[in-house]
């Protein structure tokens, strides 16, 4: 049974008494123990969907079930025991230190004064440990880096012991190593605690590599769901991103950001040198093929016991080069290389 399920859900908002529909007729399921990534172009309605599913915004119509209860008729305090969020808004937290901030996550379970029991403190410690933040949690928030602060915000959401956790672009302000760390952490948490985690992101590559499931939102607010690899194979990915004007390359699993405009060239060899020689040639506009019978422009890479040689064959002739840079400049000097 999914942790969260929608039926006929229409999201949007009311402006000047006019309903503005963002997404309509959504039938979605969020599974326990899975990390789900929500991808899609800006302005498609990712945040609206997330806020609606988190009960922070009214839907226009339809049903949202959270553990078989009607989410939209739950009070904020009931909801807080099942559902926690990490928002893009980054609170400065004043003079709160990491532990005090994580402890706020226990509010749904404490009495009127917010006093923590030993059990609550155990949970706070567990949440801090779970995000590997034990070494920094005593620091005030103002002294933390963006990545550390984001871990603390995740620990706070975790201390709420939610069934479902929503994260709105949790990696937006982080550098690449921190993004990898946070995503890996969230996947582990989903698997280990049997939580359902939904996070929105623009990190296509990371999402493809870490998510158990993807929700792919198109320009019209429609959501296509499935295993990441399956969505690539069946062409959904290419279709969704094609409409935004960026061709998706199913072979590499990334966007095709190269512009063609030069001749066809073949690259043979199967070392890491060949891979990156192909990339370099694609970047400057060549169409690279593997089969050297399709063209008379050829690069062959020989790795002779650690000494790498690029053998280049063009209309001008035939030469051997020792670095990638020399190879590229030799090939581009050929006036006929521009198709």
């Amino acid at each position: 049974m999914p942790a969260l399920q929608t039926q006929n859900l229409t999201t949007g908002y009311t402006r000047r008494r006019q309903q503005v529909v963002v997404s309509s007729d959504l039938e979605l399921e969020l599974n326990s123990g899975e990390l789900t990534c929500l991808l899609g172009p800006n302005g498609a309605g990712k945040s609206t969907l997330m806020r609606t599913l988190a009960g922070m915004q009214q839907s226009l119509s339809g049903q949202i079930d959270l553990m078989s209860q009607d989410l939209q008729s739950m009070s904020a305090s009931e909801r807080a025991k099942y559902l926690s969020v990490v928002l893009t808004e980054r609170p400065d937290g004043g003079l709160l230190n990491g532990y005090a901030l994580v402890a706020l996550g226990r509010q749904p379970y404490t009495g009127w004064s917010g006093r923590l029991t030993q059990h609550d403190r155990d949970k706070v410690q567990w949440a801090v440990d779970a995000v590997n933040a034990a070494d920094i949690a005593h620091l005030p928030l103002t002294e933390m880096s963006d990545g550390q602060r984001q871990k603390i915000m995740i620990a706070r959401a975790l201390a709420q012991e939610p069934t479902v956790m929503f994260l709105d672009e949790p990696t937006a302000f982080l550098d690449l190593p921190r993004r990898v760390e946070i995503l890996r952490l969230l996947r582990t948490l989903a698997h280990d605690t049997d939580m359902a985690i939904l996070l929105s992101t623009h990190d296509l590559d990371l999402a493809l590599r870490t998510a158990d499931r993807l929700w792919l939102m198109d320009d019209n607010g429609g959501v296509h769901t499935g295993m990441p690899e399956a969505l690539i194979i069946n062409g959904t990915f290419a279709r969704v991103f094609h409409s935004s004007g960026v061709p998706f390359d199913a072979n590499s699993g990334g966007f095709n950001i190269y512009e063609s405009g030069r001749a066809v060239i073949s690259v043979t060899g199967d070392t890491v040198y060949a891979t990156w020689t192909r990339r370099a040639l694609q970047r400057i506009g060549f169409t690279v093929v593997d089969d050297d019978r399709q063209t008379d422009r050829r690069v062959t890479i020989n790795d002779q016991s650690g000494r790498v040689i690029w053998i280049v064959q063009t209309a001008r002739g035939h030469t051997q080069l020792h670095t990638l840079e020399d190879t590229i400049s030799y090939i581009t000097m050929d006036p006929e290389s521009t198709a």
Partner: protein
Amino acid sequence: MASRTQTRAALPVDAVLNLQSRAWLLLIFAGVLLVVFVVALSVGSVSIPLSQVIAVLAGGEPDRATWATIIFRHRLPRAITATLAGAGLGISGLLMQTFFRNPLAGPFVLGISSGASLGVALVVLGGGSVGAAMIAGVGFSRDLLLAAAAGLGAAGTMVIIMIAAHYVDSRMTLLILGLMIGYLTGAAVSLLLHFSLAERIQAYVNWTFGSFNSVTWRQLRILAPAIIAGSGIAFLLAKPLNALLLGEQYAVSLGVNLTRSRRWIITATALLAGAVTAFCGPVGFIGVAVPHLCRSILNTSDHRVLLPGVAIVGATMALTAAIIAEAPGSNIVLPLNAITAVLGAPVVIRVILARGNAGKVFG
């Protein structure tokens, strides 16, 4: 995960979240307040030795019989008023700073003092025969009339703000509304001032200086319950106030009923700031400075610690200002607001400079 047997080893979380050291600081604060309170009883137009003050309070006979009368009739109501007013201003200032997430917010951001000043201006400047009777000065009835006018003005503003808060969601709108009410009442007051006689203007200006001196035992029967009720509401709000440190969206996700919390925060502020303004005039700076002072000394943003903190420190600051206003050793009484500004402004400046920027000061 740690087992839940009785002999759980202490975790790092226990040491960091321990509030006992803060409880000690609060006790020290309370001790200082007690000392300042006694000193406040000794200063005034007649200087009474501290030993005699303590003797009178202990129920003994002072060296001069009039001293007991002075203390019970004048000094004690004044000191109690200053204590209540300071606590009320400190608490309402903290409520507004957290609610608006703005370090410069204070008890009067919602326009309470502006509404009160218009009420007072209407009575003093525009009240014709009523105003004339007031300048003639008829004992406590004059003060009571002022209090009623200020209270009505403050209440009127709060009704407008409450209605607005019911319909608009944005705190920023409320903040701007409070500001605009201030400008509008300011315009009305300056018109009234423009067409008034000099002595009436003087009476109005005196009210704007603020004072703890005119509150009698009888008036304390209204002021005290209002402050106690307002403080009680504020203490019950400690948990949602802590959640609001993260912003309204996070607070809702933690289970806070935003509409209800907002309504009670405004009610508590109205009670506290409204009652103080009605009886003591628009006493400035304490409400803005004290929360900053407490955050920096107590080094926390936790309202369970800050609320008692600002109440005690606010009371201490108000009493100190009252003592200085009496200009001990002289026969003059200085305007209270001049003193609170001189005490309060350096606090705000120091705290802001020490922290690097205002955003970080505020919690």
